[in-house]
C-alpha cells in the first residue's frame, strides 16, 4: 500500500494524517478526562457521558445564536463565554444526577451502568423533543477560519490548532487540580480508602458529588470544543462513548497520564490507517488491537499500585 506514493508524499501524508489524528486526540482527551475522573477515581461507569458532552455542545450553539442576534460586535469572543456556560450547565446537571441517582448505587457498579444508560436514553429523547432531531452546527468566528500553510503540501487548520491548545490548557488545569490542590488530595484519599478518608474528617459525600460534577462539567467543555470541528445532533454523544471508555480502560483507569498516552495511541493509529484503508476497517483494526492488548494486559498501560 505504500508503493504508490513517493517518499516526500508519504511524509506529507503522515504529517497531515498525524494532524487529523491530533484533532481526534484532542476530542478523545477532553471526553476521556471527564470519564477518567468519574470512572477512574470513583469507579462509576457513566454511560450518559456522551449526553453530558452534547449538552455542552447545545449550550455552545445557543450561545453563538444569542451573540449572533444580540451582540454581533462581540461575536469573536463568544466561544469563551459558551465554554464557561457549558461547564456550568453540564456540571449542574451532573451534580443533580449524582444526588438523585448515583449516590444510591456506589456499591453496585454494574447497576450504575444500566441506570446511566437509561439516563442517556432519556436525555437523547429530551434533546430530540426540545432541540429537534436535525444536527446543528455553530458559525465559527472570523479568526478561527482558514488554515496555515507550513510547506506547499502541508496545511493545518486554525480551528484544529485552537482545539488542541484548549485541550492542553484544560488538561494542565485538571492535572493541577487533581495533584496539586487540597481538594485533589481529598479526592485521591477517598479513592484510595473511603473509610479512612471519612475517619480523618473528609466529607466523602461532598467529595463524591463535586468529583462527579467536575467530570460532567469537563464533558460539557469537551462538547463545546467539539462544535468547532463537527455538528451536533441528539445522538452524537453515543458515537464516541465506546471509544472513550476504551481510551480510559486502555490507559489504566486511575491514571491521567495513561489516559493521555492511550488517547494519543488510539487516535494516531486510527487516523493514519484511515488514509490507507476504509474508515470502518481502520476503526475495526484499531479497536481490535486495543481489545487484544487489553486481553493480554487487563490492567491497562499505566497502573496505580494501591492496596484495596
Amino acid at each position, binding site marked *: 500500500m505504500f508503493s504508490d506514493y513517493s517518499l516526500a508524499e508519504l511524509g506529507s501524508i503522515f504529517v497531515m494524517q498525524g494532524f487529523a489524528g491530533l484533532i481526534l486526540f484532542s476530542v478523545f482527551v477532553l471526553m476521556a478526562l471527564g470519564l477518567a475522573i468519574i470512572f477512574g477515581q470513583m469507579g462509576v461507569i457513566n454511560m450518559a457521558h456522551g449526553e453530558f458532552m452534547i449538552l455542552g455542545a447545545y449550550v455552545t450553539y445557543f450561545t453563538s445564536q444569542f451573540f449572533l442576534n444580540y451582540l454581533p460586535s462581540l461575536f469573536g469572543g463568544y466561544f469563551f463565554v459558551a465554554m464557561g456556560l457549558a461547564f456550568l450547565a453540564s456540571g449542574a446537571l451532573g451534580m443533580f444526577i449524582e444526588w438523585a441517582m448515583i449516590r444510591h448505587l456506589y456499591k453496585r457498579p454494574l447497576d450504575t451502568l444500566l441506570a446511566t444508560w437509561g439516563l442517556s436514553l432519556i436525555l437523547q429523547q429530551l434533546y430530540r423533543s426540545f432541540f429537534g432531531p436535525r444536527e446543528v452546527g455553530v458559525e465559527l468566528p472570523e479568526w478561527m477560519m482558514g488554515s496555515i500553510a507550513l510547506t506547499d503540501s502541508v496545511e493545518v487548520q486554525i480551528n484544529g490548532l485552537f482545539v488542541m491548545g484548549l485541550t492542553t490548557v484544560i488538561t494542565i488545569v485538571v492535572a493541577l487540580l487533581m495533584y496539586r490542590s487540597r481538594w485533589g488530595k481529598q479526592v485521591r484519599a477517598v479513592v484510595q480508602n473511603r473509610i479512612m478518608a471519612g475517619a480523618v474528617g473528609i466529607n466523602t459525600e461532598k467529595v463524591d458529588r463535586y468529583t462527579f460534577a467536575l467530570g460532567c462539567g469537563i464533558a460539557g467543555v469537551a462538547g463545546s470544543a467539539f462544535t468547532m470541528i463537527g455538528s451536533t445532533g441528539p445522538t452524537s454523544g453515543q458515537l464516541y462513548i465506546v471509544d472513550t471508555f476504551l481510551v480510559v480502560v486502555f490507559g489504566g483507569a486511575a491514571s491521567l497520564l495513561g489516559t493521555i498516552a492511550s488517547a494519543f495511541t488510539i487516535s494516531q493509529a486510527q487516523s493514519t490507517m484511515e488514509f490507507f484503508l476504509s474508515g*470502518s476497517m481502520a476503526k475495526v483494526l484499531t479497536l481490535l488491537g486495543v481489545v487484544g492488548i487489553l486481553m493480554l494486559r487487563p490492567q491497562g498501560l499505566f497502573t496505580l499500585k494501591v492496596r484495596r
Partner: protein
Amino acid sequence: MKSTAFLSRSEWIGVAIVAALILVVLPLSVDGFRLNLVGKYLTYAFVALGLVMCWGYGGILSLGQGIFFGLGGYCMAMFLKLEASSVENTKIQSTPGIPDFMDWNQITALPWFWEPFRSLPMTIILVIAVPVFFAFIIGFAMFTRRVGGTYFAIITQAIAAILTILIVGQQGYTGGINGITDLRTLNGWDIRTDDAKYILYFVNAGLLLGCVLIAYFVKHSKLGRILVAMREKEDRVRFSGYSVAGFKIFVFCLAAGFSAIGGAMFALQVGFMSPSFVGIVPSIEMVIYTAVGGRLSILGAIYGTLLVNWAKTSFSESFPELWLLGLGGLFIAVVLAFPNGLAGLYQSYVEPRLGKLTGKKSDETNGALPQGSPAE
C-alpha cells in the same frame, strides 16, 4: 429440598404455567400477525435466559449478548440466503448462484466462509458452535486473567461495536447495513407462509422451554451452587480449590449458546438478519428484559421479555416519542427501586398471600437466596 431434585414442585408449576401460556393461551388468543410478533419476542427471551444464568447466577454482566444472537442469526441467515440464491433464482445477475448483495458489490465468487453453509446439518452445528467458540475465546482471555465486573462489561460492549462496524463495512460479504434479507425456504420448505410461521412459532417455543429446563438443571446442579458462591465471594471459592475461571467460561458459553439459538430462530421467523441486532443498543436492551423479569428468575426472563416488548410495541404504535423516555425510566426504576424485578415483587407480595390462600406455607424459596449450606 434435596439437592438431587431436578425441579421443585413450585418450579414445575411455574414451568407448566409458562408452557400453557406460550403454547396454548397465546396461540389461541392472538391473530397470526401478533403471534409472529410474540414469536420474535420469544427469540429475545433466549438471550434474557442466558443473561439470567450469566449475570444473575454467575455475576458476569455481558453487554455484548447481541454478538452471539447476531452470530447465530447470521449463520442461519447465510444458509437460507444461499438456498434462496440458487442459480435459477439469480440468473439475471452477472454471477448467478451467489447472494444478490455480493453481485451488487462486484464479488464474483462465493467467499470461503460461506461454503460450509450450503448444508443444513453443518449449519445447525455452526449456529451453536461459532458463537460458543467465540464466547470461549473471549471468556478464556478475560476470566483466566481475572478480569470481571465493569471491565468485562466495557470490553464485551467494545466487541459488539467492532462486530457491528465490521458487518456494516464489509458490505460485499455480509450484506452491510441492510443485513441478509429476502430469505425464502428452509430445505425446500417455504418459511413465509402462515402455516410455516405457526409451525416455527411452536418449534421456537419448544426450544425455549427446553432451554428453560437446561437452565433449571444447571441451577440445581452442584455447578449452579458454585456459581452462586462465586458471585457472592469469589476469593473464598478460589481458595477452596475450585477453578473459578473454568466455571465462568462455562456459564458465559452457555449464555452464548442460548442467545445463538434465539438468533437462529429469529432469522427463521422474521425472515432477515441485520447488524441492528448485533450492536450495543440491542445488547443493552436485552439486559433490561432480564432486569425487568428479575435477574435471578429463569421464568422471569420470559415474562420480562414479553412485557417489555409488548410495552414497546404498543407505545411506539401510539406515542413513539414517549417510548424512549419510558425505556430510560424503566432502566432507572428497575435498578433503583426493584433490583429483583417482577420476580422479586412476586416473591415479596404475591407468594405469601398465595400461601395463605392454599393454607400451606410456601415451602420453596426461589432463587433470590442461595439455598442450602455454602460450598464447603
